[in-house]
């Protein structure tokens, strides 16, 4: 009894005045923290947006946000894994990770994530979990409150209307087109996520029953399911840019090739990216986007906190602000980034809703009704297996 009392008194002394609300306590704890946010850094528009977030966090909450720029999200996962292996269970070097899909699945499976924390975040109530089910299920894997939704993405293809008036709208038609125009098509080398997602589109269209992709790859006959994918890739290879001997390193690198006239198509996981690139003078004005007749894959991207993050409170405050109407509307502005919101416009204050509705769409961006159907992401294990097989076949 005595000891319990003593502990309580000491606890109060150490913690200072007890905050009324748990969120206020989090805010208080976050003040003065430096949050290391590990996020892919290959697009300076996104980098600019993250820098803007950093500025807001400094002004509003006294948090110093450091953008650790990655060339591949797997690097951050690897770092957390290595720290766990070395027994560093607190004071880890990664506070927040931008991720989804196989990286989330790997971290969740490895107990590498802090949480569940998402439902404690005040701005989570604005998230449209009903009409945007991918905010709760990431590549078929339930998020279980371990990652906070940040943005909506859908895969689109770019073409230059001044060169290709009518683009092929199916994977099979694309092969015919490439045969007729050797050297004018390329896809980024997996495991770059644009390249990997392109392979998924090929696979989804060529297999008899795409439903099998919703199950883990281990439970299926990998060779039988993916055979048509490899056949298609081998068939198109001699007609690819550089005869398929080398591949662009990323989506933005492919945009540059399109701008240079080296290829006639590009691709992105953001319907507004083409408009943004045109606005920034990185693509010709005549570029437009299109999707396949069978639709393209859509998903949600998230932020998560590693189990051993040194600054969890700060990371939660950042994750919360990322879901705020203010941060989301700024993100969706095609002049800033053009990334789709995860929020439900009906749930927010009329003034916020009006700001969303006032956003311009961008000259190359398709209207929402043109971006259908949206295909689901396969189970992440397929991606891991396909990337490994691609490396075996195309990188030796």
């Amino acid at each position, binding site marked *: 009894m005595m000891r319990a009392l003593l502990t309580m008194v000491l606890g109060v002394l150490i913690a200072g005045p007890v905050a009324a609300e748990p969120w206020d306590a989090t805010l208080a704890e976050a003040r003065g923290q430096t949050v*290391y946010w*590990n996020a892919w*850094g*290959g*697009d*300076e528009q996104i*980098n*600019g947006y993250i*820098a803007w977030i950093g500025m807001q966090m400094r002004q509003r909450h006294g948090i110093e946000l*450091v953008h*650790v*720029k*990655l*060339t*591949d999200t*797997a*690097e*951050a*996962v*690897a*770092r957390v*894994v*290595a*720290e766990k*292996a*070395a*027994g*560093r269970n607190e004071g880890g*070097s*990664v506070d927040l990770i931008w991720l989804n899909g196989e*990286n989330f699945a*790997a971290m969740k499976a490895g107990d590498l994530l802090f949480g569940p924390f998402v439902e404690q975040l005040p701005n989570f109530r604005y998230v449209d979990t009903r009409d945007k089910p991918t905010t709760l299920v990431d590549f078929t894997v339930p998020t279980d409150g371990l990652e906070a939704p940040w943005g909506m993405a859908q895969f689109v293809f770019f073409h230059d209307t001044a060169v290709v008036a009518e683009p092929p709208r199916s994977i099979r038609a694309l092969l015919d087109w490439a045969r007729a125009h050797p*050297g004018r098509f390329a896809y980024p*080398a997996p495991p770059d996520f644009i390249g990997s997602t392109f392979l998924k589109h090929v696979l989804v269209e060529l297999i008899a029953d795409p439903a099998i992709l919703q199950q883990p790859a281990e439970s299926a006959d990998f060779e039988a399911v993916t055979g048509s994918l490899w056949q298609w890739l081998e068939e198109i290879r001699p007609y690819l*840019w*550089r005869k398929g*001997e*080398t*591949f*662009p*390193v*990323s989506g*933005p*690198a*492919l*945009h*540059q*090739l399109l*701008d*240079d*006239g*080296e290829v006639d198509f590009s691709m992105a996981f953001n319907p507004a990216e083409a408009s943004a690139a045109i606005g920034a*003078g*990185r693509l*010709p004005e005549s570029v437009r986007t299109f999707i396949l007749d069978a639709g393209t894959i859509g998903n949600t991207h998230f932020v998560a906190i590693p189990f051993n993050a040194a600054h969890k409170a700060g990371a939660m405050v950042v994750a919360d602000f990322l879901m705020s109407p203010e941060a989301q509307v700024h993100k969706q502005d095609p002049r800033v980034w053009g990334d789709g919101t995860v929020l439900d416009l009906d749930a927010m204050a009329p003034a916020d809703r009006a700001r969303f509705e006032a956003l311009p769409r961008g000259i190359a961006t398709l209207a929402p009704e043109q971006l259908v159907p949206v295909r689901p992401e396969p189970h992440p294990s397929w991606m891991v297996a396909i990337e490994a097989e691609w*490396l*075996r076949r*195309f*990188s*030796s």
Partner: protein
Amino acid sequence: MLRFLPAITLLVFLGPVAAGLAGTLLPAFGYLPALGGEEVSLAPWRRLAAAPGIGTAVRLTLTSGVLSTLLALALTIFVFAAGHGTQALTRVKRAMTPLLAVPHLATAVGLAFLIAPSGWLVRLIAPWPSGWQTPPDVALVQDHLGLALTLGLVLKETPFLVLMTFGALGQVRADDQLRMARSLGYGLVQAWLKVVLPLVYPQIRLPVYAVLAYSLSVVDMAIVLGPTTPPTLAPLVLRWFNDPDLAMRFQAAAGACLQFGLVAVAIGVWRAAEAALGCLARPWLSGGARGGAGTVARAAAWAGLALLFGLSSGSLLSLAIWSVAGRWRFPNAWPEQLSLERWADQAPALSGPAWTTLVVGIAAAVIALVLVAGCLENESRRQRRPAPGALTLIYLPLLVPQIGFLFGVQVLLVWADLDGGWLALIWTHLLFVLPYVFLALADPYRSLDPRYARSALALGRPPWVVWTRIKLVMLLRPILIALALGFAVSVAQYVPTLFAGGGRFSTLTTEALSLSAGGNRRVVGLFALTLAVLPLLGFGLALALPAWRFRHRRAMRVGA
């Protein structure tokens, strides 16, 4: 204190290399308890042998590394054979220093901008006279033979070898030898090749091996210019180290050992080839053929040099133009608009990495200088030269591939809870900065006339004062050059920053490399240009400061 400094220096910077090698070797044989590797086994090596593309990666590593070293050495030799003692060569020397200062990555990015199918050179001849409306579909960078990487390495390694040869010439009294040979009727080129080269080559042997080791294990340049499917060995190993599947680390460690082995074997074979060539060339050396004016050799040397300077300066220029370019479509030879807006936009993103680069570079260079100057002063007071083997020790971090021991260093840092801090970062940079500072300072320090110090001591000044007021001041120029070189070396480090910084530190080099994946030439150009300019500013200061300090001292001016 001073007498312990050489030992401390060796410990500070050889300790991590040795420990790092051990820390890489053990996981390569399956032992790394933190990751569940409790038993020694050959499994990592079996996985390495089965890794996709490993054979091609090794072949590409060897061809690009050996070919670039051969070309750089050949160009160096021909430049000296053709131009020894001429005014032109003095100008070449002056022009080489800035080329040496520019970090590898900046040269690589600029070269890619220049020679890519959509690069500046093709734009100059398209659409007229080539008739190209779209860029030709040929891999001119990231080609699957690694030729672009080879070219990039030649551009960067030739200046190093040329400057090292200048230093070596002073030690072999080349001028006298050459005059003798000339008076016997040998042509200029023949005289140099037959008389000077056999004397100079042993002096530049270690620098040549350093170039070979570097070229075989380069990462940043290989990512930008080298083939990608698969890349050369070092970037491939780095990719495995970053894999979330921890089992890959064992394979990566084995790959790092293979990298180490490749370098060791390459140096060994090179050494054997030197000996064989020495024997084979004996009849030619002593055959007495005088040779002619060497017109062809001269033309080749100057053409090679012109190409080197043209490509190097063209690379820097294309970085500068892309950093201010607006719309610039193929095949236009010039951007439609130029604007400084992007510099203003990117200033916040640029400043953080630029500060980190400056702080680490200056700290590492200053620490290296203190250690090196201390060691040299100790040597001069005790009047004892270190054994020749000591020089090899100094070179060790330059001969061991970075990827071969930095993983072990990282394990060590994590274990000591030092990773991701400034101390670890600066220390790791110091490993590579210190040898260069030593190389730059040792000769001037040792050749300073000892009578100055002796007179001052005889006049009753304590050694400490003599050192700081006389020797260091007289050596201000080489000291500043050594500092600038050390700074330039630090600025260019990629793999050490990655491994010791724990991802928390981004320097201009790491930033430029991660942006280069994005392919926005404007922003990449801007970062790469800043990366190139910082070391150049350092050298500029190193030249300007003594000129200002000694403006009233005629005997201390250049050339005096």
